[in-house]
């Protein structure tokens, strides 16, 4: 096999892995986009919501006979779905008890539209979740074991003439399909239903929405709960491939914010592509850079895009002054 073929093979392989990982990042970002992009709430605990989603999936997998009934292959994905309602409720309660005090119509008169207060409140929540999880679940790395994560489909795209062999990790393929389906479902919910319309109205102009009879506080709460559940599901999916601990959220919260900003604040689909792009950047940076600098590349790309195209790749309205 020539050097050229090796290069082609490794580039295509990186592309595949980047797209598969990126789809998952995209789903995380979509969850944050509901909260930060649309409702303009700065949530630093989003990574920890994801961590909770990972543990919820882990325990759902072990409990309720899911693993026994559906088997280890399918069971993990059933567990992700089973954990989602719990995370939806969790997001709803967190908003009802705490977040609503520093968001929506309450922010009038607060400095920086309440962003200071949101930031510090969610930092507090993040600290409680990280350390609480350590007390409850321990600090060890755990993972959801599914045989699929070590199996792959091998494909020879160019046939006999050019022996290039590409691997599709089975678990990652399923995960990417799952996240694509979840995002399409969410997009339909937002675009087509009355609920989605009231969410968009509340996000666009809270005051005008109030006059139109929309309960803005409730709309925010629903968006917050959905955002929490979507990111948590992405976490559950990630857990099938990736060992995690209570402090895993810190790593991903940056990726999520980078993805949302890259895609354009305010755009759900944009956030997905933003996350996808980050997955690709991360994979391709391995061509030229040592692994320790992979994440640094994400930040550099993030900075470049923010400076050259601050409205993001897909966003339209940059700022509402």
């Amino acid at each position, binding site marked *: 096999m020539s050097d050229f073929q090796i290069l082609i093979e490794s580039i295509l392989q990186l592309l595949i892995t980047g797209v598969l990982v990126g789809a998952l990042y995209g789903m995380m970002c979509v969850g944050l986009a509901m909260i*930060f992009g649309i409702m*303009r709430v*700065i949530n*630093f605990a989003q990574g920890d919501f994801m961590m909770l989603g990972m543990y919820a999936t882990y325990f759902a997998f072990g409990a309720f006979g899911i693993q026994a009934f559906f088997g280890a292959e399918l069971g993990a994905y059933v567990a992700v779905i089973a954990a989602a309602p719990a995370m939806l409720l969790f997001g709803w309660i967190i908003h009802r008890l*705490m977040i609503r*005090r*520093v968001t929506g119509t309450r922010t009038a*008169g*607060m*400095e*920086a539209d*309440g*962003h*200071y*207060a949101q*930031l*510090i*409140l969610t*930092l*507090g*929540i*993040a*600290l*409680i*979740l*990280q*350390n*609480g999880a*350590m*007390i409850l679940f321990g*600090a060890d790395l755990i993972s959801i074991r599914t045989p699929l994560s070590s199996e792959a489909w091998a494909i020879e795209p160019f046939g006999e003439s050019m022996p290039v062999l590409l691997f599709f990790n089975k678990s990652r393929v399923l995960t990417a399909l799952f996240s694509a389906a979840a995002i399409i479902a969410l997009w339909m919910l937002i675009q087509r239903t009355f609920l989605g319309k009231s969410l968009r109205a509340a996000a666009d102009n809270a005051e005008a929405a109030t006059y139109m009879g929309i309960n803005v506080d409730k709309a925010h709460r629903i968006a917050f709960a959905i955002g929490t559940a979507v990111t948590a599901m992405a976490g559950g999916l990630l857990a099938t491939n990736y060992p995690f601990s*209570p402090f895993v959220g*810190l790593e991903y919260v*940056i990726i999520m*914010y*980078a993805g949302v*900003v890259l895609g354009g*604040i305010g755009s759900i689909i944009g956030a997905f592509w933003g996350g996808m792009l980050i997955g690709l950047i991360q994979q391709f940076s391995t061509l030229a850079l*040592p692994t*320790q*600098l*992979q*994440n*640094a590349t994400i*930040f*550099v790309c*993030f*900075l470049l895009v*923010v*400076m050259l195209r*601050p409205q993001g790749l897909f966003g339209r309205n940059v*700022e509402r002054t």
Partner: protein
Amino acid sequence: MNMAVLKSIRVFFALALAYMVLASFVTNSYYQLIMTLVLIWAIFGLSWNIFSGYTGLVSFGHASFFGIGAFATVLAQIFWGLSPWLMFFISGGIGALAGVLIGFPTFKLRGHYFALSMLAYPLALMYVFQWLGFPEVSIPRVTDNPAAYMQFSDGRIYTLIAMVFLCAVVVLSRAIEASRFGMALIAIKQNEAAAEAAGIDTLRWKLKAIALSGGIAAMAGSLYAVVILVITPQSVFGMLVSAQALTVTMFGGAGTLWGPIIGSAFLIPIAEILHAELGNFLPGIQGVVYGIAIVVLITAAPEGMFWKVRDWLRSGRGETLAASAEETPTATVTPLPARETRDLNPEIVLDVRNMSKNFGGLKAVQDVSFKVNKGMILGIIGPNGAGKTTLFNLLNGFQLPSEGEVYVDGVNMARRKPHELCHAGVGRTFQIMRPFTRMSVRDNVKVGSYVTAKDEAEAEAIADNALRQVGLSHIAHQLAGGLSTKDLRLMELARALAGRPHILLLDETLAGLGKEEAVEVVAVIRRLSASGVTVVIIEHTMHAMVQLVDRFLVLDHGQVVTEGLPQDVTRDARVIEAYLGKKWVANA
């Protein structure tokens, strides 16, 4: 520095002395360390406050500076044997340089984008230091004359060093608060556009602030490394470090030097003691309790303890801080009698020629020309969306015209920056009021006077004079947060006047005012006009304007509909059509 400044610092020095007396009795080395860390985190919080607290630009990335200072100090001693005494000050320079390098590109961004971009710097640095092969570095022990390398067996000496440093930073913060520097930063926080319109070169001040803030943060990091001995990229560049600056500051209250001090004094001991007492059998309990404390406090007092307590004390003394209720505007359309026609000074001070502005396909302003005589009052009216505010933005440089020229006193000023127009004597107010609610009326106005004032005394004299002109001298020392809409409008007018303009552009100064209040404001504007200031005022209602203006310019869909004397314009069929629609023209 005036008496109030000295007094507040006296309180701080008394507390500092008490703290040191307490520290001198502590013999347990762990508690000595806690007492030092309280001070270091307070300094770090203060450095964050100098930048983010005063300018309102939230930095999630102050760990960049902290970490650079810490690593510079440790590595310089490892590789070159440089003493931390020296590196402490060199770190300040490195931090300031890092501040400028980070600030220069990042200041292009606003709001969320700025805050999030700042987050990326320390994390990128963290990975770079890991990659460079410094997963953990420690200060080499020096046996020969350890004091020359800032190494002491008695932990209380570190507490003393940190306290001296803290005192210096507090004095510096207080001096900034009371200076033109602080006022400029606060003006930027209030409304960056308004600050620029008031003649402040915002980029320059922001760079100064981040350089100073970065320098102090790096020095805090340097001291931290010396005290804690072992550092890792995670422990000095990590997100928790950036969070620490915000947490202590916002817990105590942002925008005041007391905030970081109060926050640090409460939170650091709680966290450390919990860690020491319970950390063995409940790892993470410190974080949980710390988190709960933050959540409870922020839900009860979202602006921080300092402001909560201060507002509570003030309300007890009857100085209300309640936001002013929006007064109901009167809905009368009865035209008031027009002012008498007067002869205009033939000198033209503002000459607008063929001004146009397109936003894509939308022609917001089309071929608008008009002349303004010295000392006259020109009213620009038109329905919502007629292009009035866009026209003002073109006149004072916020937006660049697609075509056309603006002559101010015969000099073409089209396409100049807002602060240049301000220096050329064009002042303006804004449709949306942005007072700095926790500052006195006088300080609000003082911000505007720095355009021409050479020193503090002159700035104060100009501010007092401006307040007298609008008739607000009697409430000069009240907080702006408690003012009525009318007084806020007058205060903004005074702020524009403080720049000593000879042409004033007023954007909907009468909006939201009741009938009597409008009459009062009209009287003030007339007085200004009589004193020689030329006034151009935008309004979309006509009734109060008829009493005020010498001439009207009517805009609709970005074009001049008509121009003329008030009594003629109000009877013009085209004007009535623009306002009320076609069917009213027949009835008029």
